[in-house]
C-alpha cells in the first residue's frame, strides 16, 4: 500500500526532502547538499536519506531550479528563431529600457538567441488575424534546411500577430519538423497566445531554450523513480503554484523557470490557512536573500511580470515573490558619508559570516545576532560551533568603532537597519497594493527568518507571527500539497457594456475544451477537473488590467464588472463607477485535483509545560542591558505550551527569538505562534 507523499525541493546549496506519511500524518524531513552538475543525484540521495522506499510512494512532487539555472548560466542547446521578415530583432530591441537607469556601464544581458540564428521568412498576419501574406513555403523550407545544416536542435517560431491567427506558425512548425529530425519547436501562438510581440516572443524563446533541457532532465528522473518502484507521475511544481506532469513539459517548459521560488510561497500559504489565517505574508530569509510573498483571501498574489534576466519577460502567471538582498550573511557597513547601511552585499557562503571562522572579517547579521546572544555560538543540537570572538571583532571593526558605539549597541543598530529594510520591502508588496498589514499574519521561515520575525511584525503592526515546525525546509513542504494546474488565456478586447454573452460563452468554451484536453493528457479523471473563469479588464484608456473572477451564465460579465470597480478601489484606492470599462482577456484556471491527505491536528498535551535547556544573557531591542533568558529545545515543546518572552527556542535548522512582551504558543500544527502582549494591534 502506497502511503507516502514525497516532496523534493532543490535549492542552490541544499536539496530538501519532506515526507508525509498519510497513515500517521507524520512529517519527516531530510537535507542533503545539492549537486549542481546533475541535480538528480541530490534528489535520489535525499530520498535515500529520508529513508523512503519508492514503492511506498503515492505521490512524488518536485520543485526544481534546473530551468532557472539554465537561464542564468545560459547553457543552452543550439537554438534558433524563425520570425516574420523585418522583425528578427524584436527580442533584442525589447522595450528598449534598462534596469539600471543611471549607470551607463551596466548593460542589459544579450538575448537568448544570437542574431545570426534569428532567421526571417516572408509571411504576415494583420491586427484582425487576416493573412496579408501567406507563408512563403519555399523560403520556409530553405530556412529549415539552413537550420539543419547549422545543427540547430530547438526552434522558436515567432510571427507578428500570431495571437490573432496561428495558421502560418503552425505551418512553419510542420515544415521544421519535416526537415529537421528530432527538432523541438515552440510556437508563440501555442506558448502564449497574447498580444504584444516582445513579451510573447520572449516567453516563447525561453520555452524553446528550456524544452530540450528540462524535458531531458524530467524524463531521466522519471525513469529513475520508476526503476525504484514509484508507480505514479512525477509532479513538477511550476510558477503558477500548481504542478504539471512530464507529458506537457516540452510545450510549457518555461513554466518551470520559477519552480524553486514558488515553493516557499505555497508553503507559507498552506501554513497560514491551516492556522486559520486568510491573509498572510510569507518571509523566507536565508543566507543571502529574503523572499517575500503575499496571501490575500486565501490566494497567493500572481504577477505576469516576471523574468530571470531583465528585459526578457516570461509572461505566464507566476506567484509574486519579492526578493531582496537581506539575509543572515548580509553585511553591515558604514558608507562614505558615515551612514550605517545593511546589505545588499553579502558574505555569501564563502567566506560567510565572521563567526563561521572561514576567514570572513566583515560584520554580518548573523555575527550581530551572535554578539547579542540571540544566536548561540554553539547550537543546541548542533555540530557547527560558531566563533563568538570573531563575530564580536567583526562587529567592533565594521560598526562599533566607526560609529563610536559599544559592541552590543552596534550589533543592535545593525539588525535594526536590516529589519527596517525588510519592513520596507514588505510595505512595497503590501501597502503599495492596497493591503493593510494589520490584517495579516507573518509566516517566517528559512534559517534566519524566525530570529527576525517578531521585530519585523512589531514594526509593521502585524499582530501574529507563525514559525512553522521546520523553518529550514519549509519550501519542500510547499511542493507537497498542490494540484495539477494550467493557466489559459485568450485576448478579448471589447467594451464591457457592449458584450454579447453568447460570444463570451463560446470563447470560454473553447478555452475549457483546451483545458480538458491538457488535463486528459496528464491523466486527470473528469471528476477531478475544476475550471475557474476570470476576466481581466480596465478603465478604458488605462494601460494595466486587473483580473477578477467571472461566473458562468447570464449576468456573469456584469457581476465581474461590478467586482472590478471594488477591486480597483482596493488596489489603487480610487474607483470611477461612471467610466467606461474595457474587457481585455478571458482567463481560465484549469485544476486537476490530486488526492489530498488529511493532516490531523495534534492533541494538546495533558501537561503543556516546557523545561528550559539552559539560560544565557540576550540583548533585546529597547532593553539596554542583557536579560538572562531561558533557552528551549523546540523538540521539547509540547502542543499547547505557552511561553512568555523573553525566550529563545533552538532547533537544528533555525532559532526563534521571543522578545519580552511577546507570548509564544505551540499550536496543534506544531507551529510556534507569537502575539504581542498588551497592545491593541
Amino acid at each position: 500500500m502506497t502511503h507516502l507523499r514525497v516532496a523534493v525541493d532543490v535549492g542552490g546549496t541544499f536539496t530538501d526532502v519532506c515526507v508525509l506519511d498519510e497513515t500517521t500524518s507524520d512529517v519527516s524531513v531530510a537535507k542533503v547538499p545539492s549537486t549542481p552538475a546533475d541535480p538528480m543525484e541530490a534528489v535520489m540521495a535525499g530520498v535515500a536519506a529520508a529513508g523512503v522506499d519508492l514503492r511506498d510512494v503515492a505521490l512524488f512532487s518536485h520543485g526544481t531550479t534546473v530551468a532557472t539555472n539554465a537561464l542564468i548560466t545560459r547553457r543552452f542547446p543550439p537554438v534558433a528563431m524563425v520570425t516574420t521578415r523585418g522583425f528578427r530583432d524584436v527580442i533584442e530591441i525589447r522595450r528598449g529600457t534598462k534596469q539600471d537607469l543611471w549607470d551607463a556601464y551596466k548593460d542589459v544581458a544579450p538575448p537568448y538567441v544570437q542574431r545570426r540564428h534569428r532567421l526571417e521568412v516572408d509571411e504576415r498576419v494583420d491586427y484582425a488575424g487576416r493573412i496579408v501574406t501567406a507563408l512563403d513555403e519555399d523560403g520556409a523550407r530553405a530556412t529549415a534546411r539552413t537550420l539543419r545544416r547549422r545543427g540547430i536542435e530547438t526552434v522558436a517560431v515567432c510571427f507578428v500577430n500570431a495571437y490573432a491567427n496561428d495558421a502560418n506558425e503552425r505551418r512553419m512548425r510542420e515544415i521544421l519538423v519535416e526537415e529537421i529530425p528530432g527538432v523541438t519547436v515552440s510556437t508563440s501562438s501555442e506558448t502564449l497566445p497574447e498580444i504584444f510581440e516582445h513579451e510573447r516572443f520572449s516567453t516563447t524563446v525561453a520555452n524553446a531554450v528550456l524544452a530540450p533541457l528540462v524535458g531531458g532532465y524530467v524524463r531521466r528522473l522519471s525513469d529513475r523513480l520508476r526503476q525504484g518502484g514509484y508507480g505514479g507521475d512525477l509532479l513538477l511544481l511550476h510558477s503558477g503554484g500548481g504542478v504539471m506532469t512530464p507529458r506537457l513539459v516540452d510545450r510549457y517548459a518555461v513554466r518551470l523557470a520559477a519552480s524553486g521560488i514558488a515553493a516557499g510561497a505555497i508553503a507559507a500559504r498552506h501554513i497560514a490557512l491551516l492556522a486559520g489565517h486568510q491573509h498572510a505574508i510569507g518571509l523566507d530569509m536565508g543566507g543571502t536573500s529574503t523572499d517575500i510573498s503575499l496571501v490575500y483571501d486565501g490566494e497567493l498574489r500572481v504577477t505576469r511580470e516576471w523574468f530571470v534576466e531583465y528585459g526578457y519577460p516570461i509572461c505566464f502567471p507566476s506567484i509574486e515573490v519579492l526578493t531582496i538582498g537581506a539575509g543572515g550573511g548580509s553585511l553591515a557597513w558604514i558608507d562614505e558619508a558615515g551612514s550605517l547601511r545593511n546589505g545588499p552585499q553579502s558574505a555569501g557562503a564563502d567566506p560567510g559570516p565572521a563567526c563561521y571562522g572561514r576567514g570572513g572579517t566583515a560584520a554580518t547579521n548573523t555575527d550581530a545576532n551572535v554578539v547579542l546572544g540571540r544566536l548561540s555560538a554553539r547550537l543546541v543540537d548542533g555540530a557547527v560551533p560558531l566563533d563568538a570572538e570573531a563575530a564580536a571583532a567583526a562587529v567592533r571593526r565594521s560598526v562599533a568603532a566607526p560609529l563610536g558605539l559599544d559592541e552590543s549597541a552596534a550589533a543592535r543598530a545593525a539588525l535594526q537597519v536590516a529589519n527596517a529594510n525588510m519592513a520596507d520591502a514588505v510595505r512595497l508588496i503590501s501597502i503599495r497594493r492596497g493591503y493593510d498589514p494589520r490584517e495579516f499574519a507573518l509566516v517566517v521561515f528559512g534559517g534566519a527568518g524566525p530570529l527576525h520575525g517578531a521585530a519585523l511584525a512589531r514594526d509593521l503592526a502585524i499582530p501574529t507571527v507563525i514559525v512553522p515546525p521546520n523553518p529550514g525546509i519549509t519550501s519542500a513542504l510547499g511542493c507537497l500539497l498542490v494540484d495539477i494546474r494550467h493557466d489559459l488565456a485568450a485576448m478579448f478586447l471589447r467594451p464591457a457594456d457592449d458584450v454579447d454573452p453568447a460570444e463570451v460563452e463560446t470563447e470560454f468554451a473553447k478555452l475549457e475544451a483546451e483545458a480538458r484536453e491538457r488535463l486528459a493528457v496528464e491523466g486527470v479523471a473528469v471528476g477531478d477537473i475544476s475550471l475557474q473563469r476570470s476576466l481581466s479588464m480596465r478603465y478604458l484608456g488605462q494601460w494595466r488590467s486587473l483580473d477578477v473572477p467571472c461566473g458562468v451564465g447570464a449576468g456573469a460579465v456584469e457581476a465581474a464588472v461590478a467586482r472590478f470597480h471594488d477591486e480597483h478601489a482596493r488596489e489603487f484606492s480610487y474607483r470611477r463607477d461612471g467610466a467606461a470599462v474595457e474587457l481585455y482577456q478571458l482567463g481560465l484556471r484549469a485544476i486537476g485535483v490530486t488526492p489530498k491527505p488529511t493532516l490531523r491536528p495534534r492533541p494538546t498535551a495533558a501537561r503543556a509545560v516546557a523545561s528550559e535547556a539552559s539560560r544565557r544573557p540576550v540583548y533585546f531591542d529597547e532593553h539596554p542591558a542583557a536579560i538572562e533568558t531561558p533557552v528551549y529545545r523546540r523538540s521539547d515543546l509540547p502542543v499547547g505550551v505557552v511561553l512568555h518572552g523573553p525566550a529563545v527556542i533552538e532547533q537544528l535548522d533555525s532559532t526563534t527569538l521571543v522578545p519580552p512582551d511577546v507570548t509564544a504558543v505551540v499550536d496543534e500544527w506544531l507551529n510556534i505562534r507569537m502575539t504581542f502582549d498588551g497592545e491593541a494591534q
Partner: protein
Amino acid sequence: MSELPANRVSTLDPVTFEVLKNAFSTAVDLMSEQILRTCHSFVIFARDFSCALCDARGDTIMQGSQDIAVHVGTLHYTCKAVIEAFPEDIHPGDVFAVNDPYLGGTHFNDVRIIRPIFHEGRIIAYAQANGHWADVGGSVPGSFDVNAREHFGEGLRIPPVRLWDRGVYRSDVARLIFSNTRVPSDNEGDMHAQAEATRICQREVLRLAAKYGVDTVVTAMSEVQDYVERITRGRVAALPDGEWETVDYIDSDPAAGEGLIAVRVRMTISGDQLHYDLSGSDPAVGSFLNSAYGASVSGVMAGTKTFFPDVPLNAGFYRAVTVELGPEGSVVNAPWPIAVTGFCSGPYEKIMNAIFELWSQVMPERAIACSFNLEYLLVGGRDARRPDRPVFMWYDWMVGGWGGRNGRDGSTATAPIFGVGLAVQPVEGQERLSPVMTTRHQILTDSGGPGEFRGGCGVEKGATLTAAERTVMSYCCDRARSIAWGIDGGLPSLPHGVWLDPAAGDERFLGAVFSNVAVSAGDSFQRPSAGGGGYGDPLDRDPAAVLEDVIDGYVSIGRARLDYGVVIEAVDPEICSYRIDANATAQARAEIAVHRRGWQLEDAEAIAVRYRSGELGAMDLVRRYGVIVDWGTGELLPETTSQFREMVARRSVAHWP
C-alpha cells in the same frame, strides 16, 4: 570605508537616520507604482513621469529611484512656484497643479500635481507627482508644434492653480484645464492617478511622523539632503581641480541660414564644488528646440548624475553642483514666450552629451561617446477602418545606439539618454489602434559609429499607411547634421531623418524636424535611429570583433573594410562561416592610415557631387570626409560642414597616431 568622515554632523542616531532615509525613498516609490498602474496616458505608462517628496521650503528630499532623467532637478522649482504663488494660503486638503516651463517646469505636457502634507496645522512637506499628459492643447495633436515660435501655439500654460480647495474638488478650474485639451477624459484620469499618488505619499509621511515624532522626521528630511551633499562633495573633492570645456550642436536655426547652433558647456572643479557655465551658447532658435532654465538645469544634473550613478538625488546634490546658464534669450535659457516644448530633442541631450564628454576626460574609466538623439514621429488623421472614422494618433518613438565606451562597445537599441526607462510601444498594439502597418522594426546594420569600441547600433522602422484619411505627419528630432560623434579617435554614426515613399511619386527626405506633412493611404515611410559614436581609433579594433559583428550583421562586409580596414571573406554564409584575410587587412589599414587625414580636407563640393551621383553614401560623407549635405537634394551645407569638420578634427583626427 570604516572611518567616519570628520564632517558628519547629525542629531539623529544612525538607525533612525538610515530607517527614515529609506522610508522616504519607499514613500516616493509608492507614488510611482500607483501612477504606473492607474495612468491613462500611454506616455506616462511608458515611464515619462517622476515623483518627489519636497520639504516645507520646496527643496527635494527624495526623488523616485526609477524616474525619467529629464525631470531631474526641476521638481523643487515647481514646488517652490506653488509656495510663492499662494503665500499664507495653503491649507490641509489642498492640491495644486502647475506645468509652467518658465517657472522651472520642463514642457507643457509635464503637469505636476502637488499636495502639501500637514501635521497638526503645520506644513512639513510636499508630495509631487509629475506626468507627461498625451495632449495639452495647442495647434497640433500631442501639443508638439515644431513650427511654434511662441508658447501660445504650443499648449495650455498652467501657472500654479488650486485643484482641490480644502478637500473640495474645484470642478471650475478642472473644466478650464480639460476644456483646452484634445483628450479631456484621459487627462482627467491621469490627474486623478497623480493626485491619489500624492495622497499615498502623504499617508506614509504621516505614519512616520506618528511613529518617530514629527520633529525627528523633519530633522531627517534635512539631514538626508546634507547626507547627499556630503557624499557628492566628498567625491568631487577627490578629483583634481580644473576646467574643461566643450561644445555640442543643434542642427540649425530655421529662422536663419544653415549652420550649427552651439550649446557650450564649461565645467569647473574647485575643491568640493562642481560648477557648470553654459553662457557661451547661441541665441534661441526660431523653432521649438529651445530650453527654459528648468530643463537646462535638469540636463546638467542628469548628465552629472550619470557619473555618480549610486548617489541619491535630492537638494543636497543640487547644492554641490551649481549652474550658470548665462543671459536670458539663449537656446538654453529661453524666457517666456519663446517656444520650448522641443527642448528634449534640442538642447537637453546636447547638454547631457557634452557633459558626458567632459567627464570622459575626468573619469576615463567611465568614458562614453555621443548617443543617438531622442526622436518621435506623430502620424495623425482619421481611421477609415471604422465607419465612424475616429481620430487616430500613431505616436511613435524609437530606441537607438549609445556611445562607445572605454573597453566595450556602446549599448545597442536602447532608450534615449533623455530617459532610459522610456519604453517603446509594441507594434501589435499600434496596429490595432491605428491604420499603420509596420513593415520592419530592426537593428540597422553599420549604424554604430566606428571605433576601437564601436557605438551601439541604432534601429530602423518602416511602415505603410493602410485605411488612413486626412492624415498628416510631424517629426521631432535633431542630429541630421550635428551627427552623433565619436571621441578619442572614434567616428560619427549616421544622420537622423524621415524618408517618405509616396504611393505615387519619388522617395523624398523630409528631414529631422518637420510638421504637418500630408500623407495618404498607400504611402510608406521609414526612418533610422542613429547608432552611438565610436570610442577610440577604429583601426585599433580587434579584427576578431569585426568578424563577429559581420556574422551577426551588425556590420556589413563592405563597411568592415571601409570603416575598420578589416577584410572579411564569406566562406559559407549559410552556416555562418567567414574568415579574416589578414594580409589584405594589414594593407587596407595601412592605406586608410595614410589617407584619412587628407580625406577630411578634400574639397567639400566635390564630395557633395559624388554623393549626388550616388557614388558615395551618407556614411562615407559623415565618417570619411566630414561633409554634411542636405541628404535629400545633396546640396552642400558649407558652414555646417566647416563646423562639423572642426568638430571631427578635435574629437577624432587629433587622437589618431
